[in-house]
């Protein structure tokens, strides 16, 4: 697999993480994580279930207490795309109202807000009709694109995406990543994304961090994702291990 896209990158660091550790209820969940994110790059975080990927995001966003340093560039605007809504499906909340959470005026939005919303809907390939739907009526793919469009309304310089295709139908994953890639290229937005899908990482990420409570590997995907690193990351029984034999 080769990288199909070569995004423009600058050396300007937008996020520097140094020796980050998180302990939850006495259990060390993340240990000594260090990496940097540069403006305009796509950076993937991969790892097995329970590796601490979402915990890492929550720590970066200041939602969890941690030790070590998390330095955001002072002018960085952070957009966050969670996996799903927390509200139950029967709640009478329209999609328009979810977008209005980003508007200064919830009850009577300004024209400027509505026109920017139209722009983001178009970018995400969403029809205006989606605005009248209830949040609970959206399909997995629509939910994901609504969440991304909402994050884009803030014109973020960094977008954090927690498995942006977890709830999306199989054939639609590529569309979501292609849309994200357009945002990265057109707007110079840095993407920090958690992904399960190695092919996505190869295609869209300039760098990858393999995580299993601590950093297993880090670097450009073609270099970092070597058989030994993948075996360590996903366990001794992995396909790569058998193919190449024991590394130690």
């Amino acid at each position, binding site marked *: 697999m080769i990288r199909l896209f070569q995004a423009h990158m600058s050396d300007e660091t937008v996020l520097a993480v140094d020796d980050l550790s998180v302990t939850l209820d006495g259990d060390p969940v993340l240990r000594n994580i260090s990496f940097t994110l540069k403006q305009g790059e796509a950076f993937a975080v991969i790892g097995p279930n329970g590796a601490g990927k979402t915990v890492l995001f929550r720590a970066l966003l200041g*939602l969890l207490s941690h030790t070590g340093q998390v330095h955001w560039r002072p002018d960085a605007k952070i957009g966050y795309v969670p996996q799903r*809504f*927390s509200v139950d*499906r029967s709640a*009478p909340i*329209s999609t328009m*109202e979810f977008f209005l*959470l980003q508007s200064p005026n*919830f009850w009577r939005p300004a024209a400027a807000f509505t026109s920017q919303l139209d722009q983001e809907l178009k970018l995400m390939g969403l029809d205006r009709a989606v605005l009248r739907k*209830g949040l609970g009526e959206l399909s997995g793919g629509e939910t994901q694109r609504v969440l991304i469009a909402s994050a884009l309304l803030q014109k973020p310089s960094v977008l954090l995406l927690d498995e942006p295709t977890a709830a999306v139908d199989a054939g639609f994953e590529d569309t979501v990543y292609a849309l994200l890639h357009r945002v990265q290229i057109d707007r110079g937005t840095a993407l920090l994304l958690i992904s399960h899908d190695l092919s996505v990482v190869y295609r869209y990420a300039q760098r990858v961090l393999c995580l299993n409570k601590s950093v297993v590997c880090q670097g450009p995907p073609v270099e970092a994702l070597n058989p030994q690193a993948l075996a360590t990351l996903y366990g001794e029984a992995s396909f790569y291990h058998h193919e190449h034999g024991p590394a130690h």
Partner: protein
Amino acid sequence: MPASPHTSFWIALLVGIASGSVGPFILLRRMALVGDALSHVALPGIALALIYRFDPFYGVIAFLIAAAFLVFWLEGRSRVPPDALVGLLFTASLAIGILMLPNADVIESLFGAFPTLSLPLLLAILLTAVLLSALCFFLAKRFLFLIVSPDLARVHGLGRGYDLALLLIFAMIVALGIKLVGTLLMGALTIIPASIAKNLAQSMRRYVILSAIFGGAISVVGVWLAESFRFLPGPAIVLLGVGLFVLSLPFARRGTA
């Protein structure tokens, strides 16, 4: 001072609207049971006021605000709302309140009565009800944000202060209505209009407006029924609301997962 029908109607209208305005947020936060139990805490406050001869309203408001802080503190200790603990604690306070209350005042305290109030206190109650309703509409976006995605809301700088604000607004609205509707039933008055409106509304903005309208309408009609047929106002209001809720059920949207 005799109980004036105008007093009851004005309290019913404005406190009913306030109850309806806060209800949707309590319901969507899945705090309906906690909210209902919270109103029981008012009873020891009433009992103390009667024993030490000050206006029960002040006893009620002090106990309810203390209870709101307690719920807030308990929620912060655990990720799961501590329903069982709150239920036990508040039911215990109901029991203590009953033991302390003079027998003559038990029914009225539990189920409400047509209140006799001094004009300044009546005006203070009405004005506070209007302010609390306005505050619900003003803070609607922030409350909703914390309901739809707490993490996203916190990234946008909305802290736990808004959770406390919601609890305090709720506690104060319960305090305002407790004389008319009673400690056992006042919690229900905040939940019922929101439950009816939830079945009928397609959007959050309509949900809050409809709930406020139902809150005011149910309370006023309930008071009118109670006066006409010599019922206690609390049960009349709550039963009318429950009846409307049953009628609204066929309109409920699917999907409660």
